[in-house]
């Protein structure tokens, strides 16, 4: 019994992994097909790929007993069959139904995966079946409006409703013909007898029997594009993690070797030592290559997230009756698979916020002197060891007064600063929502608190730039990879700590006499202004603060630069991050530990948390 259960749950895991692929393919090809809405041609390859993905997912879902997904796909296949029959693009409503179907399948599978109650599919099913045409013959109607016909009350709208009476309009496309005239072509599926429209030519309507399109294969087992997958292997994430851990161990072992070599310098004959050192350095290079190769396996194009965005925005635009152009750039940017999974919900939340709250309705936009159509730009890029994701809209911007008054309600006292980073901090306070009742689309997801916490938990940062009436931009920075990073080794008293290189902007040497008080903070002159200094000795209740000179590393935070004072900085090196999971050892300001090669754990500073603590203390005084 148990072994059977085990193999079944493994099988389910496979199902979830594979369904993700088919869903991805469905989303991708639906987006491609969207371009053909109300056109008289559709790329048969796209339709065939859609059939293929849907068929595979349907089969799999049936096998593991996810019958709700099976039913929805079955209905969707009906709608897609209409597209196939006509060989022309789908109608707006058919496209909508297919997109809605895909979304509900996502929800069904996600619910199954997290063992939550499944969504109700009745509405989705009836939505999809409502767009499916009855079986019947296909007819091509053509209507050319003219002033005479129009005088008799016959125009494209009356023709459309006449056609809807006899069957289902599967496609309608306007064409410009000779002489600059416009003619409308309709494809209609109808069971009624031909005699019914024998005299319609008097009303400017010509009709012909349409031969079903033959060039679209519903042959789901066809070859062609399936061929490249033969050279792909699917690997469980856990195995890659294990590989990564082993590489981490190798990096630590090499660290041991380097330590020993350092001690042996001057003891061993110079030539022998040099030879060993060369081998050591070669090993270092090779390890780095190995690490990068493994990292690459884990990297997936961010397009995976972007496709979801497209879908969500599509649904939201419809629900909110807004006119929005979604611009995506940098789809090819590669990002760690783990980051993709963890970032999905936070990004979707930001997108929902932008569409529901940020961007205005067309009327509002025109009244404000803007273009009727708003935009939402999402950009991904890589720089050094970081991935940047930016979301920018040209909506109304954050209502700072509302944010301030809401913060007052939540108990904020004293002067509330309203620069971009302070406003972002306020927005991320737990329980913050300027709407008394969260509306359906935004209320469902995670709050800004979680967005910020998720990003910071992954070692990233979130920044915001908002301009009243002009829009809002969020900038997310994430580390390229999680397990191994470059770090600076610093000493507080006699204890070493590691600081992620990515958190450090600059390193300074400071004489104690250069520190002065300003607004209750200890600062030094820096650039054209001052730099507040946080003494880590004090924060960590350690000795060593009374030195005449010390080192400061400068970090950039939400509210400007901050200097963190330590006794000395020993140098930079590659560290393997080990998480500290036990609550007894999880303290503010420490994000994990590493091993520098002597078996002694070295704590990794959580610079963002330290700056946060400092900021809270500073604003409390």
């Amino acid at each position, binding site marked *: 019994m148990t072994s059977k259960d085990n193999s079944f749950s493994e099988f389910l895991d496979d199902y979830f992994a594979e369904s993700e692929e088919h869903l991805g393919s469905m989303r991708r090809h639906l987006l491609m097909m969207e371009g053909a809405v109300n056109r008289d041609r559709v790329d048969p390859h796209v339709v065939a790929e859609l059939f293929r993905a849907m068929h595979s997912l349907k089969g799999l879902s049936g096998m593991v007993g996810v019958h709700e997904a099976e039913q929805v796909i079955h209905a969707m296949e009906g709608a897609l069959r209409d597209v196939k029959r006509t060989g022309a693009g789908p109608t707006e409503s058919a496209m909508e139904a297919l997109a809605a179907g895909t979304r509900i399948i996502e929800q069904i599978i996600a619910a199954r995966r997290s063992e939550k109650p499944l969504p109700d599919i009745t509405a989705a099913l009836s939505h999809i079946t409502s767009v499916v045409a009855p079986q019947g013959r296909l007819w091509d109607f053509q209507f050319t409006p003219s002033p005479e016909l129009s005088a008799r009350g016959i125009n494209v709208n009356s023709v459309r409703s006449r056609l809807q009476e006899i069957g289902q309009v599967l496609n309608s496309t306007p064409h410009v013909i000779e002489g600059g005239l416009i003619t409308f072509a309709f494809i209609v599926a109808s069971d009624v007898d031909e005699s019914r429209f024998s005299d319609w030519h008097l009303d400017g309507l010509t009709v012909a029997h349409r031969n079903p399109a033959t060039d679209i294969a519903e042959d789901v087992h066809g070859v062609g594009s399936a061929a490249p997958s033969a050279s792909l292997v699917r690997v469980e994430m856990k195995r890659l993690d294990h590989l990564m*851990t082993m590489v981490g*161990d190798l990096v630590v072992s090499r660290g041991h070797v380097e330590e020993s070599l350092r001690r042996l310098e001057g003891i061993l004959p110079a030539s022998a030592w040099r030879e060993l050192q060369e081998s050591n350095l070669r090993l270092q290079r090779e390890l780095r290559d190995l690490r990068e190769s493994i990292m690459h396996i884990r990297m997936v194009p961010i397009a995976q997230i972007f496709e979801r965005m497209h879908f969500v925005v599509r649904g939201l635009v419809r629900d909110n009756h807004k006119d929005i152009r979604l611009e995506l750039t940098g789809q090819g940017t590669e990002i760690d698979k783990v980051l993709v999974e963890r970032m999905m919900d936070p990004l979707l939340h930001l997108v929902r916020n932008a569409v529901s709250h940020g961007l205005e309705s067309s009327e509002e936009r025109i009244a404000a002197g803007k273009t009727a159509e708003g935009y939402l730009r999402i950009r991904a890029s890589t720089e050094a060891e970081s991935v940047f994701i930016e979301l920018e809209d040209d909506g109304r911007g954050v209502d700072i007064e509302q944010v301030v008054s809401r913060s007052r309600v939540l108990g904020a006292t004293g002067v509330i600063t309203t620069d971009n980073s302070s406003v972002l901090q306020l927005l991320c306070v737990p329980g913050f929502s300027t709407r008394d009742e969260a509306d359906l689309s935004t209320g469902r997801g995670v709050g800004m608190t979680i967005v910020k916490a998720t990003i910071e938990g992954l070692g990233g940062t979130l920044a915001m730039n908002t301009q009243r009436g002009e829009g809002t931009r969020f900038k997310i920075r994430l580390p390229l990879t999680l397990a191994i990073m470059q770090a600076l080794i610093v000493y507080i008293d006699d*204890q070493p700590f590691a600081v992620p290189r990515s958190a450090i902007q600059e390193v300074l040497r400071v004489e104690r006499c250069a520190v002065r008080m300003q607004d209750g903070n200890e600062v030094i002159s820096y650039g054209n202004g001052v730099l507040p200094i946080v003494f880590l000795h004090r*924060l*960590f*209740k*350690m000795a060593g603060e009374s030195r005449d000179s010390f080192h400061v590393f400068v970090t950039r935070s939400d509210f400007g630069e901050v200097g963190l004072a330590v006794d000395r900085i020993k140098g930079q090196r590659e560290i393997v991050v*080990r*998480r*500290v*999971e*036990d*609550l*007894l*050892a999880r*303290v*503010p*300001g*420490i994000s*994990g*530990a590493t*091993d520098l090669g*002597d*078996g*002694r*754990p*070295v*704590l990794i500073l959580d610079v963002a948390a330290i700056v946060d603590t400092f900021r809270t203390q500073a604003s409390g005084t």
Partner: protein
Amino acid sequence: MSDPLDSESFVLFELSCSTWGVRSQAVQAVEMAGYVTAVPNALPFVEGVTLTRGQVIPCINLRVRFGFPRIPTDLRSRMLVVRSKNRTAAMLVDSAREFVAIPLDAIHPPDETDSAVASDFSARYLEGIATLGNRIVLILNLEEVIEGI
């Protein structure tokens, strides 16, 4: 009486002049003290963190946990890596050298006099008392030590 089925094996350790026993099946390793990194602002009895098998675990100073004065570690000091439920932790003790089987009927629940032996602070960590010849072994309630935090 001495049937192995009726006894359980314990790792014995010394703490402030008393002998304690912890079930050996909960003990993953006994190591020399050392290599413990202090964690700033952690609870007072948390000596720091230590690395064992690639895992970073907290090290609990059992003297401090029991309310005895802290003493510097020496060559006799030991770290017991123990596991209870989902937590793995190291316990710093004065020394640990013995591994014994204790007959189950030699263990009896603590009464008030016994608690006085163990000191007021450590009474809640006392699960029972065993008499081995002329020695008294205090049986540790491990769960209370590392979970009851």
